[in-house]
């Protein structure tokens, strides 16, 4: 794929993620981690090659089908992308509302999850009043609240301390245990080494997967 017609950021990449698997994606800054994830969460259509998600060739999928697929994918954006005019609670509720979940169910689930990530006291806070670490946890809560089939997280522990980082990883592992396929992009090798998961490595032009250690 590429962001302009004449320059390709990613090429020659070929891999298959088994449903229910857990992978790290690593590589130096600018290697294309975010770009690869964008293909996975359907923010970008590939300029060439085949992207298959949930057994669908995305290039040949009708546009009207994509929203339904996107709702099965949880995304933690590198830059959080919280909505500043909504409270933490409504930010997390957004994906459920889009899926037309009942309001009383939304309220219970959102409160419980925000409690779990340590933001029980900040339910009604707007993102601009939160620290980066708190924003990151709201963004993670929003990504996992709908129990997606695929979770894609871009540097999800970049703004939190080590304790919170491990807690967040535990949340992802719990999600993975109930069947969610997880891909976590990070350049934090210390974090990777604490877990025993296969690592995909992107380095300008090369791609490889190493199995679990």
């Amino acid at each position, binding site marked *: 794929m590429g962001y302009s017609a004449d320059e390709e950021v990613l090429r020659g990449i070929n891999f298959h993620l088994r449903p229910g698997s857990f992978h790290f994606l690593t590589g130096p800054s600018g290697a294309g981690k975010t770009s690869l994830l964008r293909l996975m969460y359907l923010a970008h*259509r590939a300029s060439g090659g085949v992207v298959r998600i949930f057994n669908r060739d995305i290039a040949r999928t009708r546009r009207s089908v994509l929203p339904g697929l996107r709702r099965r994918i949880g*995304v933690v954006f590198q830059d959080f992308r919280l909505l500043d005019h*909504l409270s933490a609670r*409504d930010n997390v509720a957004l994906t459920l*509302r*889009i899926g037309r979940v009942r309001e009383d169910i939304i309220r219970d689930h959102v409160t419980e999850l925000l409690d779990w990530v340590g933001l029980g006291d900040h339910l009604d806070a707007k993102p601009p009043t939160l620290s980066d670490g708190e924003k990151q946890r709201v963004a993670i809560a929003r990504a996992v609240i709908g129990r997606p089939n695929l979770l894609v997280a871009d540097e999800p522990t970049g703004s939190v301390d080590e304790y919170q980082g491990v807690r967040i990883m535990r949340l992802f592992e719990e999600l993975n245990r109930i069947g969610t396929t997880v891909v976590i992009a990070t350049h934090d090798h210390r974090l990777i080494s604490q877990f025993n998961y296969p690592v995909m490595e992107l380095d300008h032009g090369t791609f490889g997967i190493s199995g679990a250690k």
Partner: protein
Amino acid sequence: MFRQHFDLPLGEDGSGRFVPWIVAVMVYLATLSVAAGMAVNRSVDKWNIGLEGTITVEIAASNTRAEDPGEPMARALSLLRSTAGVRSATPLADDEIARLLEPWLGQGDVPLTLPIPQLIDVRLEAGTQLDLDALGTLLENAVPGARLDDHQYWTERLSDFGRSVQVTSAFIVALVALAGAGTVIFATRAGLAIHREVIELMHLVGSRDSYIAGQFQAHAMSLSLRGGVVGLALGAATLGILRAIAAPIEGSLLPTVTITAGAWAVLAALPLLAGLIATITARVTVVRALQEMP
């Protein structure tokens, strides 16, 4: 209960603040234009109904001077009364003619000394197939100086006038609707630009285009309805004032202009029409813009 949840802060961004005002002005103009169109149409109808089934026979003055003044009149009357399809033929009395001429000649005896044509008011039976052209020729041959006037000249011109007013009124409403749609497109585009990031995020987490468009639609609808109701109220007030001013001269110079219940219903539909146009316009604008996203 269904509660529309607004994820987009459309009310707070100012992009649509001018919409109610512009829609108010537009609905105001449309109200006046439609009311004028309907009033003129009703008047034309009334005039036409008043003239329908009547013709006037005029016997020129020069003729009445020369011979026995009553003779041509008697001949015309007997011919008319013996024609099938004529219900009645009544000569207008001199003082009645004088009254009709009063606005032009002034009061007094003066008119009677002038060569004034004699007039016969002819009423036709309803639905008669009488050939007026043939009757006219017959009359002119039998009574020199007689002329038959079936008012066709006036009724045709009145109908033309009524039609022109109607077309103009429809044209104004169409222009107003177009300008209104333009306003909504402008406001919606501004809203799309302001909320680009929010919309992109909603799109990425799986919003359907219709979900996002729905919020713009509801917003545009509410703004336009509010403006439309204000415009209609101002229009109704203006019509009321105009009627009050026209009341003393109505009936003599102006036909009685009444706005019927049906006409009010049409006028009341204008704000709803504005709301509908705004909703559709907002939807099309947003869905088009969203098509650009993958």
